[in-house]
């Protein structure tokens, strides 16, 4: 049990925790379980991470396994790859996903390709944690949502949890995986609470979407912050339209089966994700439905995302480009 435990709201074997606490609990449990696991990144130790995610872990695990790095994302990400190829199981924190440009070479040509190029002669058990999303006035270089890149690039797995349970279960799976997994944390939902299983063997398989709310008329497939926004939109529409909300959870592999099953029922699809719209996650979800449920579709599929801009600083502008429950609702109304 995490130190922040509160009894779960009614569900036995769970406790209520925030997304932040869920991530911290996953890190703690996996580090306790396997001493090859370590965390490294900028200010993850003494500072506890700029979003306090790893706060306290330095005291529990010491500075060999909770490591502050120089500001060298390419260097320490590459070191993570080299460490993973030689038997360690690093968790790398990249403070903001916008900084992923710095270590991109190591990610695309080493981390993602090493197993394949070597004909399978190495595992690559590395997890990359990073933060995404706008909403706190952090401006264009600290607010991006770049996960489509990592979903697209061969050789990487990518997950985007929308709830505390998903955050904990997916991070534990990521750390146990022998493949590189990108774990994208939306920074606006760290405080969001939910019930999370306490069993240290609880994990969520990579590649499974989850129906958060059942409905009959429209399927909304959402990620991260937009899972909660979509649930709010569904609540608002309750009585008028019956909305099924799915937390996509994994971008790659993508759980096409669950999506197809839902669209076969509803005949309508909205995809809500904070990526820029063009060439974003939305299009791939739509393409999968086109491939497997084309004849079930009753209307054009809809997408909700950032309209191909960067995230501007001013709150007046930021609110304009960031998708929220109203946008999901408008999209649902568009197809019904």
């Amino acid at each position: 049990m995490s130190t922040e435990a509160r009894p779960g709201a009614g569900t036995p074997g769970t406790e209520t925790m925030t997304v932040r606490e869920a991530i911290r609990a996953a890190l703690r449990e996996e580090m306790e379980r396997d001493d090859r696991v370590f965390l490294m990144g900028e200010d993850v130790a003494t500072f506890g991470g700029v979003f306090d995610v790893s706060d306290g872990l330095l005291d529990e695990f010491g500075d060999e396994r909770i490591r502050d790095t120089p500001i060298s994302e390419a260097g320490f990400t590459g070191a993570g790859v080299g460490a993973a190829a030689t038997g360690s199981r690093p968790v790398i924190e990249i403070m903001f996903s916008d900084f992923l440009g710095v270590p991109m070479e190591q990610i695309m040509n080493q981390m993602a390709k090493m197993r394949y190029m070597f004909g399978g002669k190495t595992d690559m058990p590395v997890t990359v944690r990073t933060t995404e999303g706008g909403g706190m006035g952090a401006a264009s270089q600290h607010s991006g949502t770049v996960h489509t890149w990592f979903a697209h690039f061969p050789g990487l797995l990518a997950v985007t949890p929308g709830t505390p349970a998903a955050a904990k279960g997916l991070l534990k799976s990521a750390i146990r995986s022998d493949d590189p997994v990108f774990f994208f944390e939306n920074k606006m939902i760290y405080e969001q609470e939910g019930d999370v299983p306490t069993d240290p063997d609880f994990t969520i398989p990579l590649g499974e979407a989850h129906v958060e709310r059942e409905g009959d008329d429209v399927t909304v497939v959402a990620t991260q912050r937009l899972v909660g926004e979509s649930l709010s939109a569904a609540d608002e529409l309750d009585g008028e339209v019956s909305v099924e909300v799915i937390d996509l959870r994994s971008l790659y592999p993508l759980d096409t089966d669950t999506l197809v099953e839902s669209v076969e029922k509803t005949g309508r699809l909205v995809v809500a994700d904070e990526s820029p719209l063009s060439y974003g996650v939305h299009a791939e979800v739509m393409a999968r439905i086109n491939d497997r449920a084309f004849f079930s579709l009753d209307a054009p599929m809809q997408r909700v995302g950032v309209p191909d801009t960067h995230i501007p600083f001013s709150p007046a502008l930021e609110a304009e480009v960031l998708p929220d429950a109203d946008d999901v609702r408008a999209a649902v109304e568009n197809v019904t």
Partner: protein
Amino acid sequence: MVTADVETADGQTEILRRMLTIREFDSTAGQLFADGEIPGFVHLYIGEEAVAVGACAALDEDDYITSTHRGHGHCIAKGLDPARMMAELYGKRDGYCNGKGGSMHIADVDAGMLGANGIVGAGPPLAAGAALTAQLQGDERVALSFCGDGAVAQGQVHEAINLAATWDLPSIFLVENNQFGEGTPVEKQHNVENLSETAEAYDIPGFTVDGMDVVAVYEAVAEARKRAVAGDGPTLVEADTYRFRGHFEGDHQPYRDEDDIEVWRERDPIEAFKRRLIDAGTLTEDGYEELKSEVEATIREAVSFAESADDPAPYEAYDDMFAASIPEIEQFARKARTDGGESR
């Protein structure tokens, strides 16, 4: 020509004024942030004023600088208007970036200020590029890049300095060693005693100067500028300094305590320069107080300018993505212009 000559009385006053302006601007910004008036992140330059001011005073008005996330000091030192800076911190349309940038992206390209920058280490390559333009055009401009001690660990800083050294670009790399990168002390980021030793890897001159002494910084940069203009390539100047505030406002600073800061406060760069001028008879206590009042008034006006300025309209979020008109964005802009925006 230098923008403020440290040898003349006018230049000295100007230098003092700029340092005071930074101090006052940032103290005010810190307060406003605490009051919830300013969104996002704010990184203050308090304690480090001698670095930006000493460096920019020794530059020509046409020279370029690149800055960092901790950019307010560089902006003011380069002559930017505190009112438009403050308006930018407020996210207002009259800010330097029309509210799109905020504290971390204030820029005035026409004034040679190529932007504060939220990416640690991104400035030096940009400065190399500005210096390349100068070299290609054969003019006498120089590009100076500010970066932190932490940034020196970044690969792109290395690449930029190597490029500049190999191509003899008219450039200056100024490392502001304020002893920390966020909460990590410089010794945990580097193995060298002085970051100026880095210069050896490029066979360029490298100096460590007292970054609390505006004259020392000025002189080092003036020398470096001469070399740059003469075609002798870049110089690396490390300025030893200290930030008196947290990394960003709101930082609870688990990595140091008050006593550590106190030691450096005693070397306050503004106090030191004021003392020096008073001792030399160039400044009186009264003169100083007058200057300080002027600066306070300037910043008060900057705040009222910022407060009363307009927020940008939602549809302005779609401006400035491209020079060309792009249908993908135009469709949203059109909609926002007609329905007033916010929900699409």
